[in-house]
């Protein structure tokens, strides 16, 4: 028995060590990749391609340092980030809640979905850039028009997945729950929503990116602060380093959001087989 416990401890330790080795390799490869790309970009921009269009990493870095130390033409960089982030977060929250709720309701009601489907699909086909300027007209220049743009982008991304997720629910599970005494809402809450979770999470992964895009596009249509405006300014003054620097800030924000989402995902999908469909053999 003692021997066995020992064995088990070793097994756990081995598993841990393997995990560490894996994540080390992964990170090493990532860093290598980034370094290779940046290096060849710098080199190319110095010798072959025209930094007027493509800028170069060192210039972008300087611009970033400049923004964070002395500020931008529109004021502190943090103000711009906060502003855009606020728009994106509100739009994301509203859009994902709206998308999930409507998606699940329509996904579970054949009649509603038959009636509404063409309208929703039609609405989805309206170019957001036009919507963004309509929103400025409808909601004014304040934060609400950007939130609306972010909302609409997030909403559709989430909606279609929640809808499909709700339709894909295993009939057996629904039947079982009904037999066990679940009311309609209980079925939604305990069967449909958990089943659709991986669908919804998959859409949320891209949705925060969309929320930021919405905020930036909204700022393009009219604004007095924000990262979108900053990039727009850079475009207006032929400052390609500024364009890329702005994009990098946006990207970093999106990655942070992504990281939070991954934590949430791990929490919500704890019940999964650890390597579901994700083994190295195939």
């Amino acid at each position, binding site marked *: 028995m003692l021997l066995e416990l020992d064995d088990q401890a070793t097994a756990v330790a081995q598993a841990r060590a393997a995990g560490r080795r894996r994540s080390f390799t992964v990170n090493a490869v990532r860093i290598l990749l980034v370094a290779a790309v940046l290096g060849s970009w710098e080199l190319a921009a110095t010798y072959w391609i025209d930094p007027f269009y493509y800028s170069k990493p060192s210039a972008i870095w300087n611009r970033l340092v400049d923004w964070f130390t002395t500020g931008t033409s529109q004021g502190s960089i943090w103000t711009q980030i906060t502003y855009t982030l606020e728009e994106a977060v509100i739009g994301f929250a509203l859009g994902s809640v709206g998308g999930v709720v409507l998606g699940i309701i329509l996904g579970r009601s054949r009649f509603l979905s038959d009636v509404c489907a063409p309208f929703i699909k039609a609405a989805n086909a309206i170019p957001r850039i036009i919507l963004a300027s309509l929103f400025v007209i409808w909601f004014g220049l304040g934060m609400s028009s950007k939130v609306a743009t972010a909302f609409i982008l997030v909403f559709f991304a989430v909606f279609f997945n929640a809808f499909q997720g709700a339709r894909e629910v295993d009939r057996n599970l629904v039947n079982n729950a009904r037999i*066990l005494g679940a009311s309609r809402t209980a079925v939604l809450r*305990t069967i449909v929503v958990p089943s659709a979770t991986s669908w919804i999470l998959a859409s949320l992964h891209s949705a925060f990116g969309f929320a930021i895009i919405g905020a930036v596009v909204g700022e393009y249509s009219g604004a007095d602060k924000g990262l979108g405006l900053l990039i727009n300014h850079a475009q207006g003054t032929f400052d390609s380093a500024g364009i890329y620097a702005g994009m990098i800030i946006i990207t970093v924000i999106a990655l942070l959001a992504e990281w939070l989402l991954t934590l949430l995902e791990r929490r919500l999908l704890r019940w999964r087989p650890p390597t579901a469909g994700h083994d190295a053999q195939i």
Partner: protein
Amino acid sequence: MPTQAEPDGPAIELRDATKRFRSSSGGVHTAVRNLDLTVRAGEFVAVVGPTGCGKSTTLSLVSGLEPPSAGEALVHGRPVNGIPDGVGYMFQTDAVLPWRTVLDNVATGPRYRGVSKKHAREQARDWVRRVGLDGFESYYPHQLSGGMRKRVALAQTLVNEPSILLMDEPFSALDVQTRGLMQDELLRLWSGDDPLGQGGGAAVVFVTHDLEEAIVLGDRVVVMTASPATVKASFTVPLKRPRDAEEIRLTPEFLEIYREVWESLREEVQITRERGAGNAA
């Protein structure tokens, strides 16, 4: 036990019930045809029949999950429309919630019926123990073996103490002895001999492929015809309860009824076998 509308009337009644499905070729596949079946409250009916004849479909008619295409299904004297009160149905296929632990899976029913979380978990813990899964309370279904998942489903169904209990091959994945223990547990609940349950009197429809099991458990054994299913014959089991499976197997009454049921069933199985494509409309 939930209160019953007419304690003396039949708990389950199928009147001339027919169920058709659209088949893959766009035609119609009749799974159950003109089936009449009556189960009294407190009666334990075992159902046997050739594979694919329509047993599961029959249960789904009683449970209200599928409406009959023609004829009527009544539970406690009322036409089935939605899930009738007090029905418990253990499916042939796995239907435990993969995102809930064993304990929470078993607590699902009570929670749906409004029992407080704490109380539901208590009830669940007791049932997990009864089906022999103590120690696995916090496991997720994918971490269990096939037989363990079946037992979770069993506990999930029984914890609700249904007055109509439909079971579709509940014990087929269990080893002989575990199966025996589960059978005892089921009978205890059913006979009202249960230290925890409020009393017996449930009407049970128990689908099985094991004739011995059918005879040991049932008040009556119903044999279904080859597809489309209808009731071919119904045999009353003349054995006194409580029955001890080991002992009973060797009594002449047992052998007699076993032979009768077997003869009846064999014909149907043969038909199914021979007809082959014949029934595929």
